[in-house]
């Protein structure tokens, strides 16, 4: 009971301090990983990653292509389970609960940890059905009106509602790239996740759509724990409070975003940020 009270108080504090990004790291730890390794067959893709992901903040993973940042992201909601021959070692805990526990229901886990992919991938269904799909399969709503409300509020949170409110029954694949990506974000939020993982969400988008999504991420930070993989250092600097630099399957450096970009400790990080490698 005391613990919980403490948590609540702490959460309250973190909200107050959210104004100051450099304090992000002090927040409650939502996802904790220790010595995470990933093998694809005989090839080792990740060599012991240990990192804490704070709640109600944006954590970004940066690094050159093939450094394992996406692989690591996909470990957090066990998406690597779907890849043939992938083996994950180490521990990953969500709120202190081991997510690789064989007792744990992976379907429930993925409802708690939503994911947005590199390329917008709406289902070839209507905009409404895209957003309603998650609540439907997880049985989150009791009536049609309830479902309507979830769909509208999710689209609103994703900043898409005003643009699509007259054509909710048109296919989601008919939207522009940026709108599709926001639809995917709305779809992920419709099941009420606690953590949202974003795998290079802007890499297929133009600068204007990117700016809109970044703004959206900044807003969502108030209510969600967000992890974003990006290959744009500017984006990491703009949206995140915490940054981790990956290189060749190793976590080289992690810390408050400002520190990483202005005062990196590690030589490799420095080189990458200065544009000398990657």
């Amino acid at each position: 009971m005391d613990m919980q009270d403490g948590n609540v108080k702490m959460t309250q504090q973190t909200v107050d301090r959210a104004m100051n990004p450099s304090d992000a790291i002090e927040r409650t730890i939502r996802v904790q990983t220790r010595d995470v390794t990933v093998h694809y067959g005989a090839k080792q893709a990740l060599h012991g990653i240990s990192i804490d992901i704070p709640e109600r903040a944006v954590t970004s993973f940066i690094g050159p292509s093939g450094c394992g940042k996406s692989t690591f992201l996909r470990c957090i909601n066990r998406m690597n389970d779907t890849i043939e021959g992938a083996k994950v070692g180490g521990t990953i805990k969500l709120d202190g609960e081991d997510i690789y526990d064989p007792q744990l229901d992976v379907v429930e886990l993925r409802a708690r940890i939503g994911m947005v992919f590199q390329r917008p991938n709406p289902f070839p269904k209507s905009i409404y059905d895209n957003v309603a799909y998650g609540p439907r399969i997880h049985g989150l709503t009791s009536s049609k009106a309830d479902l309507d409300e979830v769909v509208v509020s999710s689209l609103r949170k994703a900043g898409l509602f005003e643009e699509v409110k007259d054509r909710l029954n048109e296919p989601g694949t008919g939207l522009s790239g940026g709108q599709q990506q926001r639809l995917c974000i709305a779809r992920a939020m419709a099941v009420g996740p606690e953590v949202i993982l974003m795998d290079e969400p802007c890499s297929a988008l133009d600068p204007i759509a990117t700016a809109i999504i970044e703004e959206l991420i900044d807003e969502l930070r108030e209510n969600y724990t967000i992890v974003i993989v990006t290959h744009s250092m500017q984006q990491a600097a703009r949206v995140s409070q915490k940054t981790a630099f990956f290189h060749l399957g190793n976590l080289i450096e992690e810390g408050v975003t400002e520190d990483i970009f202005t005062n990196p400790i590690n030589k490799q990080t420095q080189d990458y940020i200065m544009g000398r490698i990657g």
Partner: protein
Amino acid sequence: MTDSTMTPPRKATKIGDALRRRRNAADLRLRIYGIAAITAAIGLLVILLTTLFLGGYQAFVQTHIRVDFPISADNVDPGDPADGNYRAVVRQAMSALLPDVSTPAETRAIAKILTNNTQFFVRDAVVRDLSVIGGTLTLEVPAADIYDQLNKGTISRETLEENRRVSDQEIAWFDELQAKGAVSTPFNWGLIFNADSRFPEIAGLSGAIVGSFYAILVCFLVAFPTGIAAAVYLEEFAPKNRWTDIVEVNINNLAAVPSIVFGLLGLAVFIQTFGLPRSAPLVGGLVLALMSLPTIIIVTRNALKAVPPSIREAGYGMGASPQQVVMHHVLPQALPGIMTGTILALAQALGETAPLLLIGMNAFITSPRLALWMPPPLCQLRFIFGPIVRNGASLRVHLLAFSSCLHSFSS
């Protein structure tokens, strides 16, 4: 790099001219080939349809003769109408139509102007409506095949009498009937609704059509769900190991097995081992299902492979279970491809002859049950399976049997 080694930039125009001409000519040639191919295909189709129609249009009409049958109580007992002397009824009716005929031999001959089954048609009509007993019953009855041929002009009147299948006397009788306005040539519905018969004038395709329909129905009901289930499991759920590799290789090999081998299999397994009846569309359908199963599995797997992985990822990312991802996203996306492949496989199965010959699907069926959709008279399994078991002919097998007869005669 020094100036002396530098070549001047090539002029694109000079070389380009010849290249462009060649390219345009190649484009034109390709287009001409295409148009030529389509023209040839259409031309051949027109020739085929024209020969079919010119050779066979007469089969679509049939010579009928309207006859008033006197149903006297002497011949038909109202207490037992099915057991009446209908042969006598037919003779009396024809004698009334052609009053000049007197000798018993001639009376028998004029009865044969009508199809042999006339007595049964009359009997059935009387049983349906007992009120005609004591009065007359007017029916349009198909003429026997030689009179039909005579009427259509395929038996020439100019041929010498001894070379002709109808005598001068018979022609005279027929002309008399025609003069009385009793002869008509309506559309030949019997071609579609009658089954096999020894008498050409009342033979039709119904047995073959019904047999083919039931066989393909059984084939679809067995092969479609099984094929899709197998393909979905192999493609979406099965671990990739040596066993699934073996299964995959075997499925691909089965698709290349000659169809007659499946006929042998059906004969050995369904008929010999399980004791299912010969000539049954149930067995035919099962054999065709085995034959089309590998094709359906292969096309379904390809259709599933063609679904972009991003859709699966999106589903898993939303927390859908593998079953939900397959049923909600992957299968609906793959369905058009699956349907195309299935239709091709079923069309191939429908046209298949060799395996069906081996399980006796060229049976001679005179009483098919057309109506599968009608409720069976009694809720017994044998009534449900009755039509499937009995209607054992296939249209394709009939045609093949027919053409092989022709071949054996000509050689």
